[in-house]
């Protein structure tokens, strides 16, 4: 089946590699930050666009997001119209869940909490989508196994 806007199957593995790779990078940054904080307590932190803080944030977020996007939107081994339908259903449900949560968060938070929630919503819809789609795929294959018995 010809599909538009999907990455090749092998990109799924690249996605996993990117996502797993972001964990040690993030841990390294967190550890470094803690060491710096204990050495220079009270020193003003630089939050400019080319600061270490921002660059590390960009690197870790880019790695994580690239990983999630590649994993979520790469073709299955046998890509057919039923899988496309499952993907579309999951995407629709993800948008509903994400926006309901976002609207609730908008109503109940202010200031820094809101900024944290926006940080969370960088990756949360993708995570929802992956979980929903994988769950639907798992359920589909389980039905098939039950029917085979």
């Amino acid at each position, binding site marked *: 089946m010809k599909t538009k806007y999907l990455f090749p199957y092998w990109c799924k593995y690249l996605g996993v590699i990117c996502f797993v790779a972001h964990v040690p990078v993030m841990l390294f940054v967190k550890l470094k930050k803690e060491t710096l904080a204990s050495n220079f307590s009270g020193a003003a932190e630089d939050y400019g666009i080319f600061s270490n803080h921002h660059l590390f944030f960009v690197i870790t977020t880019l790695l994580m997001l690239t990983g999630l996007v590649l994993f979520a939107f790469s073709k299955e081994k046998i890509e057919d119209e039923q899988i496309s*339908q499952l993907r579309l259903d999951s995407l629709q449900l993800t948008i509903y869940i994400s926006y309901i949560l976002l609207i609730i968060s908008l109503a109940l938070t202010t200031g820094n909490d809101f900024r944290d929630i926006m940080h969370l919503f960088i990756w949360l819809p993708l995570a929802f989508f992956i979980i929903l789609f994988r769950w639907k795929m798992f359920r589909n294959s389980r*039905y098939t196994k039950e029917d085979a018995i």
Partner: protein
Amino acid sequence: MKNNIRVERAIKNITQADLAKLIGVSRQTINTIESNRYVPSTILALKIAKVFGKPLEEVFILEDGD
């Protein structure tokens, strides 16, 4: 919409996996079509009918509620 895929497969003596391979879909898809949990597109329905060498109406049958 109901279908006679299971019967046609038995006549032709092919498994779900064989049929799936012939039309380029997964076995799960054939299984869900057979058990009426998924309605295939026109293209897929035509491909299935072509494998069995039968007109589309003999493989897929409309029900009263459709």
